[in-house]
C-alpha cells in the first residue's frame, strides 16, 4: 500500500529463506516461507516472481507440491544477475515474492490417466511440483512414467528423490545422461533414446515435457509417434518475463502472454502459435 492506501501489483510479499541446499554446481534449492503467514497457495506448474532487492526480479517455478503447506521450494540455476544474487544469500535472508502466476498443469484432467513425464535438465524443477502432488495423491492416477535426461551425472537434480522414486514400484523411472563419467552405470544418450524402452496406452496417457527449447522439437516427435493426441501433450515454456501480469509484453508468443495463458500449453494450442517452438 502507498501512503494514500493504494495497493500495487508490483509490491512483493516478503519471504524468508529457511534452508538452502546446493544441488549441483549451478543449482540450489531454496526453502522459503511468506513472512505474512499466508500459504503461497499455488498450483503445480505455477511460478513466482522472486525479488532480490537492489538487483531485480526473476520468474522461478515453484518446485514443491501444493499438497505440502507452510513452506515452499524454489530450485534455481545461477545464470545471471538475480539468480547469482540468490545463490549468494544465506538462510535468514529476505527476498520478495509476487505470485503465484500462470496457469499450472491441468491436474484435474490428469486424474485417472496414465502419466508420462519427460523433464530435461532444469525442467525437472517445475515438474517436480506435479510429480510430488501426483505421488501424494497416488491413487487417483494411473501409471506414472518418468523419463529424465541431464547432460551429465553431476547435473542430475534431486538425487535423493530420484532414488526414492526408483525404489517405489508404482513409479517407472528412467534416467539418462548425454555423457557419462567413470561412476555412471546407467543409460547414456539424449532423452529421446529412452522412448523405445517404454510402451504406453496412447489413448489413456497424458504426457508432460519440460526442458530447453531444442529438446522440445525432438521429444514432441517421440510423443506424437507414440500416438498421444496433441491435446494430451503439455509443455511448459520459458520466456523473458518482467511483470508476470500480462502487461510488459516480453513473454508474448504471437497473441498469447505466457505469464497469463501459460507457462503450460498443450501441443494442440502451440500448433496455433508459430512463434512458440
Amino acid at each position, binding site marked *: 500500500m502507498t501512503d494514500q492506501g*493504494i495497493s500495487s501489483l508490483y509490491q512483493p510479499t516478503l519471504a524468508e529463506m529457511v534452508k538452502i541446499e546446493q544441488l549441483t554446481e549451478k543449482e540450489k534449492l531454496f526453502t522459503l516461507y511468506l513472512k505474512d503467514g499466508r500459504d503461497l497457495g499455488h498450483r503445480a506448474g505455477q511460478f513466482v516472481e522472486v525479488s532480490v532487492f537492489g538487483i531485480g526480479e526473476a520468474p522461478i517455478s515453484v518446485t514443491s507440491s501444493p499438497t505440502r503447506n507452510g513452506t515452499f521450494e524454489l530450485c534455481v540455476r545461477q545464470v545471471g544477475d538475480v539468480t547469482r544474487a540468490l545463490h549468494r544469500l544465506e538462510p535468514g535472508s529476505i527476498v520478495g515474492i509476487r505470485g503465484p502466476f500462470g496457469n499450472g498443469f491441468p491436474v484435474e484432467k490428469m486424474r485417472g490417466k496414465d502419466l508420462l513425464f519427460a523433464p530435461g535438465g532444469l525442467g525437472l524443477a517445475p515438474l517436480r511440483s506435479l510429480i510430488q502432488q501426483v505421488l501424494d495423491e497416488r491413487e487417483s492416477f494411473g501409471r506414472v512414467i518418468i523419463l529424465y535426461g541431464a547432460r551429465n551425472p553431476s547435473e542430475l537434480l534431486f538425487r535423493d528423490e530420484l532414488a526414492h522414486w526408483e525404489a517405489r514400484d508404482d513409479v517407472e523411472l528412467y534416467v539418462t545422461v548425454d555423457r557419462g563419467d567413470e561412476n555412471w552405470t546407467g543409460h547414456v544418450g539424449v532423452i529421446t533414446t529412452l522412448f523405445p524402452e517404454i510402451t504406453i496406452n496412447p489413448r489413456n496417457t497424458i504426457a508432460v515435457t519440460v526442458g530447453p527449447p531444442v529438446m522440445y522439437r525432438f521429444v514432441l516427435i517421440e510423443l506424437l509417434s507414440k500416438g498421444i493426441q496433441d491435446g494430451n501433450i503439455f509443455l511448459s515454456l520459458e520466456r523473458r518475463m518482467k*511483470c508476470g501480469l500480462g502487461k510488459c509484453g516480453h513473454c508474448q508468443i504471437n497473441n498469447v502472454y505466457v505469464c497469463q495463458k501459460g507457462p503450460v500449453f498443450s501441443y494442440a494450442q502451440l500448433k496455433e502459435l508459430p512463434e512458440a517452438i
Partner: protein
Amino acid sequence: MPLKVIDKKNMASFVTSLMKEREVVGPVAKDGKFVFSPIDDYSQLRLDCPITLLPPKQFFLPHEEPILKYKLGEAVRSEPVIEAPPRAIIGMHPCDINATWLLDLAFSTDNLDTNYMEKRKKAIIIGLDCNQPCDEHAFCKSMGTLTVEGGYDLFLTDIGDAYVVDYGSPTGMELLARHKGAREATGADMARFRAVQDAKWPKFTYKLEMSISELPNLLGISYDSPLWEELGKKCLACGACTLVCPTCYCFDIVDRLALNLKEGQRLRRWDSCQLPEFATVAGGENFRKARSSRQRHRFFRKGKYLTEMFGKVGCVGCGRCARSCLVHIDPVEVYNTLKRTGIPGGWAQREVAAYQQGS
C-alpha cells in the same frame, strides 16, 4: 444539456483557471515541431499544433517511473510508489484519445495496474477535433479513429473564433458548468459547427485498400509473407516506431540502488519489441532474433493481437511511426502490400474459393 461554446478570447481564462487546480499539459512548440508538455502560461499552448512528436501516453506511462522503493538491511522494507498528480491534458486529437482508450483497457483488464490507472483517473482529458489531416502520413480515417465515441471529459471543435464544447463525462460537464466563459451555443454557432464537420470529412482520404475489419484476417494469412524479410533488411532496430506509438506500452523493469547501497527503487521504463534483446532469455536463446520477426510482431500486434484482446483496433493511424522511420517503413504501405500480394479477398474468401473448387 445543449452544446456549449467557449469563445477563443475566453480560452485563456478557462485554461488559467484549470492551472490553479491541476497541472495543465498541452502541445507546445519545440524546434519547429510540437510536444506535449506541462505549461505555466496559456501563451505556451499551441492548439493549432498538427501533431506532437510523442503521444500523450508519457503522462500515464512515463518513460521511466519508480514503482517500488525499498530499504535493505536488518529489516528489509518495501512499499509501492505511485505518483499521480492531478492533471488536465488539453489538445488531444481523436487518434490519441482512441489510443488512450486502448491503453486504459490494457492496464485495467485482468490485472489492474494502479501505477497507470491512478494517473489516468486523476487526469482530465480535453480533446480537440481535427478539421484537416495533420500531414500526409495520417491515416486515421482508414482506421476509424477520426471520430471519438468516448474517452474524453471535454471535446473541442474549432469553429473559427470559438470552440464548440462537448462533454463526455460528469467531470467534464461539471467543469463546463463552472466556467463562466462557457456559453450556450447559438443557432449561428451550430450552423458553423455543422459546416465545419461537413467540410472536414472529405478532406481526409481512405488510405487502406481494405476495411479495418479485414485487417486481422489479412495478417492471419500473411504470417509467411516475404514482405517481413524485406522489412527486416531495412529496419535499423532503433525502436523509434514503437517509442512514438500511442498504443505501444511494453516496458522493462530494473532495480536501482542508491550510492549508499542501502536503499533503492524499482523502476519501469519503456521498452520496445524492436530491440534485439527484448525476447532474449538466460542461456542466450532469443525468441525473436531476426529483425524481420520483430517487424512482423509489431504489425501483428497493431493489426491483429490487440484487436483480438481488447476489441479495439491497435493502430490509430496517427502516422507517427511512419514519420519517424528513417527507412520509410509505413504501415499503410505494409498493409496495402500484403493486401495486393496476398490471396485476394483474404482468409474467408480463400476458404470459400477452395470449397467451390471442391478441394
